[in-house]
């Protein structure tokens, strides 16, 4: 592998995809809510970087119209504007997520996703007035149908 291959573009793209993968990994593997939220943040950062890189070419200058720099040498300004917006949105969502996490922590006393899921299920079922579906810890109740009652049923084959 020659060093030429490791030009700036490649590194940057790898960084972007790497960030995204780390983010996805964070969401997928961890069970702790904070880690998941961080995973989202990383994923967004990677996506933003990718967007930024979409029109970047090596040696491009900032898209400010000054003498001597022709538009062709500039980096495309549009993605930069877009990324700005995306970042703002991302931050907003992150803040919302964190505030919700606080609420959840207060309500359930935990930030473990599995625990939260179970408690949520419990709450929904309680509200609906149905029993929780049997969980893996609790063996399902075996409903025994008396064999006789089936045989005695008056009906055909």
């Amino acid at each position, binding site marked *: 592998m020659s060093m030429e291959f490791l030009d700036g573009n490649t590194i940057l793209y790898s960084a972007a995809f790497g960030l995204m993968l780390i983010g996805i990994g964070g969401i997928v593997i961890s069970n702790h809510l904070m880690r998941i939220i961080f995973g*989202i943040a990383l994923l967004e950062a990677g996506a933003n970087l990718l967007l930024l890189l979409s029109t970047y070419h090596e040696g491009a200058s900032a898209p400010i119209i000054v003498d001597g720099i022709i538009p062709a040498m500039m980096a495309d300004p549009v993605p930069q504007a877009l990324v700005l917006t995306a970042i703002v949105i991302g931050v907003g969502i992150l803040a919302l*997520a964190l505030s919700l996490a606080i609420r959840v922590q207060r309500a359930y006393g935990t930030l473990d996703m599995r625990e939260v899921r179970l408690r949520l299920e419990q709450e929904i079922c309680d509200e609906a007035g149905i029993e929780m579906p049997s969980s893996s810890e609790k063996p399902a109740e075996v409903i025994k149908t008396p064999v006789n009652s089936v045989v005695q049923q008056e009906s055909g084959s």
Partner: protein
Amino acid sequence: MNLLVLMIALPLLAAFLLSIIDRASSFAARVIGPLVLLATAAIGLSVWSQLGDAPQAVQWGGFQAPLGITLYADQFGLLFALAMTIGTLLLWPRSTGNQLRSSSLALLLAGTGSGLALSGDLFNIYVFYELMTVVSYGLIASRGTSGSFASTLRYLVISGFGAALALAGIALVYQATGTLNLAQLAQVAPEKLNNLQGFAAFVLMLVGFGVKAELFPVNMWVPEVYATASSRVSALLAGVVSKLALLIIMRLLILVFHQPEALTVLLVLGILGVATGELAAWRARDLNRMLAFSSIGQLGVMFIALSIPGNAGIFAALAVAVHHLFLKPAMFLLAARWGGSIRRLCGAAKTSPVAAGLFVLLSLSLIGVPPLPGFWAKLLVIMPLLTLDQPLYYFAVFIILAAASLEANYLFRVVMKLYDKQPTAVPHKAHATADLATAVFLGGGLIAAVFMLVPLADRLDSIAAQATDVSTYIQTVAPQSLEGDVQ
């Protein structure tokens, strides 16, 4: 033509002004939201009436097409914008807690929704989509129970994940074409996006926007959210908001992505959605989650419809979507009082006969009993599927039909409970008048559709035809060729 802008701006403005107005008069604050939406709807209707066969485009902010913010109004987009506005009006959230916050959130939802429907630019779509998502978080959480917070958070995780993927997809598109204006994309797509990168972008965006459209693998939030949110919010999300996400995917399919693989992906995910949703609904023991699962199945049918190439697919998906738009909110409104265990519904028809009758009507239409509109919508999906003559499409038909049988089974189990003569220990609460009236209005719409079947079908067909007319789109947004402007 600034009327179009008003459609978006008016609700947004009102939402921000609401808290200020509230200081002056709380009554005004309560009234102003619906009034604004009414006005918006009126504007939308007037635009619709002016529109005729020619779509219109507005460049907002003074820049021309590729750079400026493009609003594109054809009947297709306008239909959904109107649905968003009127839908929000009908399903105006009635929060027990902070009504002001709910009102402004609803206005925001209407504004962003209309924006989403009318945007002609991929990034604007993304922004509106994200805003709408945030607003819906607020709406779900506004019920204030711990369950609603938890489910919002879980929704947020999936949604955030999806949004990031969508953004990555947009980046891939921009990287390939250098533009995000849909008209421009439509011009360059055949040569620049008809490759692996384009396909990857499509998949990423599909997964991203699919979160709201209850696409199969990213719809895990659906049962939890609809079970914990208030029924009006569930109705809004399931009935209206999901259709807007569907609209984005339709637009992308029509204008940008023409890979055959894209259709296959849609088909497979649609089939999976139908199968998983309907099967899960079969065992659901509470009404809310049953409706949630069944709406996953319905959205799956729309994805299957989208996988039909050409005008027929859009037409079919549109028909199913519009049908679902009427039906699901009404059902969720009925579930407001009937939520919870189905077993508790024993004899509910005695206390609220109108609601029970309506539920029967809605169920019949949902499972597709002629001559109700649900049947014709389903027919529109299946007929072209069979002409395609491929095993997977046949399989899709089988899945749709089998799912309908399952639907008939579980929905009528509920109906049986409603009409059961054994009374339950807990007395049934009658429906709130507003809920019932809205549901009856929507149900009446379905009945009316039976009698106006032919004009309605023609209208939807023409809308679909307009939507699929790529050259008109390009012509309308930028009469001169944009080819040269692309870097």
